[in-house]
């Protein structure tokens, strides 16, 4: 099948800074891809390039189109939510629906009204009268009523409380996602999306440092809980990263035989968050001592 997004050497420079540095991407249909990175890692810039909101160097094709040239045409098949607060504040809900219906050929008013019926939002409400969570609900209702192939979410739940965040992803997964569609998400709340992801991409300093399916991730990476007497043996297997928690040592391994590991202690599947921390540390600094200090600091 044709990829939804394919990029070769995608680069975006701002003066001397390289926000996105020669990245290659290949995202097939029917995936939910998490794009994870620290602030300033280039996630948003990469998404902007994909959405035709910024110029770029290199090759980029989204649904077979060049986003920098064909944004308007592309937006018939791509939707995005660029964080909660971008709906115009003066507009009324019915106007927003009218407008989207007339501009978007793939919008279904019935579906949108169905989603809205589950909320407290009425057609007469102005956006500025709605709470942050309700604005997010409204935006999601609009977007889910559009039959597109690619949905891009850039920190869609930023600043929302936990109930809205849970609901947001539940709706997305139950009512929207299917094999034809691809969802690309960036967020800092990795724990909330990790169980829905099929693919994982880590970005650091404008480069991709990990690009794998979740199955591959689970295959490749393992977390091992080790008591004090096995620490030397565990270290000998060259862990990617180690830290100490409640008197136990936790090691994270990349591509080490699982049978070999399970002999040393309790084997677990690492969380995306832990993997992310390990990957970032692994590149920035190799001293285990320092890792320990920084991790305990980060978890405190």
């Amino acid at each position, binding site marked *: 099948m044709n990829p939804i997004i394919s990029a070769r050497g995608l680069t975006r420079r701002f003066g001397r800074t390289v926000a996105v540095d020669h990245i290659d991407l290949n995202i097939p249909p029917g995936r939910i891809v998490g794009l994870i990175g620290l602030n300033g890692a280039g996630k948003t810039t990469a998404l902007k390039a994909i959405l035709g909101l910024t110029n770029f160097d290199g090759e980029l094709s989204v649904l077979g189109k060049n986003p920098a040239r064909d944004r308007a045409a592309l937006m018939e098949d791509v939707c995005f939510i660029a964080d909660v607060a971008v709906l115009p504040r003066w507009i009324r809900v019915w106007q927003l629906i009218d407008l989207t219906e007339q501009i978007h*050929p793939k919008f279904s008013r019935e579906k949108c009204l169905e989603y809205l019926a589950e909320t407290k939002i009425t057609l007469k409400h102005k956006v500025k009268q709605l709470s942050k969570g309700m604005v997010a609900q409204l935006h999601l209702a609009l977007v889910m009523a559009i039959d597109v192939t690619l949905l891009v979410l850039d920190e869609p739940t930023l600043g929302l409380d936990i109930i809205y965040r849970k609901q947001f992803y539940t709706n997305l997964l139950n009512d929207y996602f299917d094999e034809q569609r691809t969802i690309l998400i960036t967020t800092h709340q990795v724990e909330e999306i990790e169980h829905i992801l099929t693919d994982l991409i880590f970005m650091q300093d404008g480069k991709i440092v990990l690009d794998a399916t979740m199955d591959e991730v689970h295959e490749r990476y393992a977390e091992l809980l080790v008591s004090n007497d096995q620490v030397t043996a565990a270290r000998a297997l060259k862990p990617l990263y180690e830290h100490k928690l409640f008197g136990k040592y936790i090691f994270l391994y990349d591509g080490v035989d699982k049978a070999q590991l399970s002999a040393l202690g309790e084997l677990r599947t690492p969380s995306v968050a832990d993997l992310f921390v390990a990957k970032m540390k692994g590149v920035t600094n190799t001293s285990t001592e320092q890792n320990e200090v920084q991790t305990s600091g980060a978890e405190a």
Partner: protein
Amino acid sequence: MKRMIALLRREFWENKGAFRTTPLVIGGLYIVFLLMSIFTTNHIDSDLYTFKEAVRLMGDQSVELRGNVMYQGMLASSVFFTVVMGFVIFFYLLGSLYDDRKDRSILFWKSLPASDTLTLASKLVSAMVVIPTFFLIILVITHIVMAVFGSLMIIGVDGNPWTLFLSLVNPFKAWGMIAASWYTHAIWALPIYGWLMLVSAFAPRVPLLFATLPPLIFAVLQTWIEFLRTFTLKNNVLGIISEWVINTPAILSIEFSDGKGEIALGAPLTDQFDHAVTLTNMLDRIFSVQMLGGLTVAAVFLAGALWLRHRATEG
């Protein structure tokens, strides 16, 4: 086309107050003033004698004159609409590409499959066609309402509004002229509209300043250059400085008069000051208007020096 109409509606929804309420208020004001004058007339002169006289006198005038006055009056009543419409369009365009950048809703608009060209066109069409059309419709309604009230008033004093004025003017000609002038003005004003939209798209903040300052600076610069060009040596900067120098209260030269030479203050090349070496002459210079100007200039220079000195050790 469907998208264009949708975008035009969006502009109307966002700017209802400016597009529709503003001309309604002007039309309302016209009608209120007319009613006020009717009631005032009625109150002061309950028999409406004066009004009756006025109607009679009007009837005495030639048909041609009455028709012309009506026609001119209709055109004149559009001036208020035109001026306010100018302000409405000015501020509408200034915000047209700025407001959604400011509140970041541009990210929503750009998520819709409407091209930037279409969006820009919808805003320009709103300014050139939609706003004048709103104003025109409300102007026509205002005229009709005023004609109705005026006619009732004339009927009240047994006059015949039809022969008196209604039949003498073709309102469609007046409305047509006003419409034509507004729509041609929209084309005439395109450079200004373009400038306002450019500023609106570019300004990082306060588009009003970005729109007005550059032309203002340009105008000031031009005036200044013109000023320098027509300046005589006596009055230009070099002239002022040299005059300043030769008028110093320091004893510097010899003044010759009547074949006698006498030691003098400064150089006695101008007759602005008395150059004889006396204390009064020295004090005259210190307490002069020139000295006050000089002190102001000195204060500016010194403050500048202090500012620079303060920053001399920074990075």
